[in-house]
């Protein structure tokens, strides 16, 4: 099986990105490292002085750490889910996006658990989660789910790289250091693209993709239940798990659009990431936007209609501009209406507008998580009666913001690093255009 002549030089097109970086690249890296260093300092301060340096207090025990946790985990599960669906459904136009999705999935899955560790008062006792594990606790479920998913995502990511590693190994003219060549040789596992090898590799990929889809849905539902299992108005809702999964996919698609746009700009990929890609994903965004609006409306209308005491108190905080009114309107207008208007009406639709909408949706969905966590914790059954302002209202401190920025910096940094190791687009998969649709677990003829 030889690659198409048409795409023969595809790999050569992408190898320059893998070779020695320029000065601008190092500058970018140092800026990101600076943010990460500040994050480390903030972490040191938190360990040294205790959690008192954060904005978290006895009522709002979880702040933007857990919001970042939900946010990154959502991106991860969305990335995994979408890439596996693309893979199993053999969506041809989705091929160039696969690597971005898998990278998003894996990198954010590495970053997310760090935020939950920041929430924990005694990080030195993490081993207690193993030796005293209680299966009844949603935290234990989450630990199991995240560890499982981390394994699966890494392995799937590696599987999708094997062909590219084999191509890079067989490329004599590539200008990379010797250890990198050796690494490619090792990671390629002696893959020579024989029909038999291709069959086994495809089977392995199909199995992993098939198992990652339910795993990521379950894992993100478990995260939703982490909140849903609390006896708290605003959280204790059966809609929470599907709502979370949907929000995750929504934010994942939005992030994909943004990454696509950045890649297009930075690496000049107009040939592979076309306007159609933006339009297709834009339409997906509209569909998710409608679902999101539907879920959100149904969540609030049921709480509002029956007007139970504490949930009503919580709702009034959303409608009151001195409390969370501004954030509530901003986040829900953008997340539930903006894509419909900007992408839905052809006159507004363009690559730029779709990208800006997506970026705004990501911000809106982060704020949405804030609105799920903070106001709910500020509205317990017994109203908070405390004379210390910071005990009544949560506001994040510089420590928390520094660590949030450090997380985003790490996310970008890992993306940049990963683009140095393997092509940013699954080259071999793009080359391989002979097969149209393979049947999952097909029988031998």
């Amino acid at each position, binding site marked *: 099986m030889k690659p198409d002549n048409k795409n023969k030089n595809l790999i050569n097109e992408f190898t320059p990105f893998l070779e020695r970086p320029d000065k601008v690249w190092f500058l970018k890296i140092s800026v990101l490292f600076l943010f990460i260093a500040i994050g480390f300092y903030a972490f040191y301060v938190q360990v040294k002085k205790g959690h008192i340096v954060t904005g978290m207090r006895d009522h709002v025990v979880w702040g933007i750490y857990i919001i970042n946790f939900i946010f990154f985990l959502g991106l991860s599960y969305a990335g995994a889910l979408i890439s596996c669906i693309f893979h199993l459904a053999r969506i041809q136009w989705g091929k160039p996006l696969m690597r971005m999705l898998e990278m998003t999935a894996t990198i954010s899955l590495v970053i997310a658990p760090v935020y939950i560790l920041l929430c924990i008062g005694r990080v030195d006792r993490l081993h207690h989660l193993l030796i005293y594990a209680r299966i009844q606790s949603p935290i234990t479920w989450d630990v199991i789910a995240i560890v499982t998913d981390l394994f699966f995502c890494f*392995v799937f990511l590696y599987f999708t790289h094997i062909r590219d590693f084999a191509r890079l190994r067989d490329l004599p003219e590539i200008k990379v250091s010797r250890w990198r060549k050796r690494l490619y040789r090792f990671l390629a596992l002696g893959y020579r693209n024989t029909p038999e090898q291709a069959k*086994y590799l495809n089977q392995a990929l199909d199995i992993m993709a098939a198992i990652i889809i339910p795993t990521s849905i379950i894992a993100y539902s478990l995260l939703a239940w982490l909140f849903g299992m609390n006896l708290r108005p605003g959280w204790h809702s059966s809609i929470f798990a599907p709502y979370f999964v949907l929000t995750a996919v929504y934010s994942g698609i939005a992030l994909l659009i943004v990454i696509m746009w950045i890649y297009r700009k930075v690496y000049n990929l107009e040939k592979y990431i076309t306007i159609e890609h933006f339009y297709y994903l834009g339409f997906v965004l509209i569909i998710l936007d409608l679902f999101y609006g539907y879920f959100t409306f149904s969540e609030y209308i049921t709480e509002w209609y029956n007007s139970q005491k504490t949930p009503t108190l919580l709702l009034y905080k959303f409608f009151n501009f001195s409390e969370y009114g501004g954030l509530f309107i901003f986040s829900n207008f953008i997340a539930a209406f903006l894509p419909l208007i900007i992408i839905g009406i052809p006159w507004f639709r363009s690559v730029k507008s779709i990208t800006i909408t997506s970026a705004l949706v990501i911000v809106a969905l982060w704020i949405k998580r804030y609105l799920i966590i903070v106001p709910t914790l500020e509205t317990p059954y017994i109203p908070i009666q405390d004379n210390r302002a910071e005990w009544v209202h949560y506001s994040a401190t510089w420590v928390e913001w520094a660590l949030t920025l450090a997380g985003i910096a790490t996310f970008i940094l890992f993306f940049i690093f990963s683009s140095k190791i393997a092509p940013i687009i699954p080259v071999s998969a793009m080359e391989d255009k002979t097969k149209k649709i393979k049947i999952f677990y097909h029988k031998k003829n």
Partner: protein
Amino acid sequence: MKIQIINKYLFNKVYYKILFILFVIYSVPARSEDNSKINKPIKSRMYLTYDKLTDGTKVLTAKLFTKDGKIFTPIVNAPVCFSVENDTSTLELGIISTDKEGLALLYLSKHYQLPGNLGRAYIFHAEYSGNDEYIPVDGQVEIKDLLLDFKLAEKDSEKTIEITVNEYSSEDTLVPAYDVEIYGYVKRLYSLLEIGVEYSDDLGMTSIEFPGDLPGDSIGNLTVIIKVEDSDIYGNVEKIKDINWGIPVSYKETKTPRALWADEAPLWMIIAVIVILAGAWFNFFLAIFKLYKVRKLGKIRK
């Protein structure tokens, strides 16, 4: 140069005047403060109580303390001298130091014969002689010996406690004590639960009805305490007996069920977790196995 300056100051009259004023200002108030501390001992106070325990032991308790506004402070490690007054003489019983709560307790065994007296009435004294810091104080109680006893009677499922109180006549014979206020209690973990109050009649008898619905321990045992409390004549007298009139409470700790809040999780939960994880990881290893085959084929070609 220096000497000149010193001389200038030393022989300046103003300087001496200032020095004198300073001396007066600083020394006088300080002295008066010291005086008040040394010369004014604190007033000490004492409560003396008398208890007759169930085994006939008599206990004299002297509580020694000071009072400042609403704050009571015990005087610790202070010797208190106990004595009993006879018709003719005073007999010293002993000296006991107060403990950290300011209490000095004197136990008089039932075998200990107090000096003979008409009708077995005694005047007990407790005396604290004081020291530089505390003013001496003493306490006194006048007590007539009371004999308290009770029987338990069960008639037609009605349970009653029949109480008899006697005292000594001037001829040293037992006579009924009448109009004595008697309390019935059941002992509980933290306190005594009152079950009734009665006055003794002319025969020195009375009865208290025992509630039928009172839980006891695991076999229904209870401790009943009959008491004469804070009597001006008899002091405190008590009699304690264990009875089996309580409703048995099952102490058997049933094994905690498998529950969300218990140590052991519900079975379905464990099974569900195992099934889901086994399913997921089976597929994972299947995929790894396929990869192993890829690698094997690559080696063969080499």
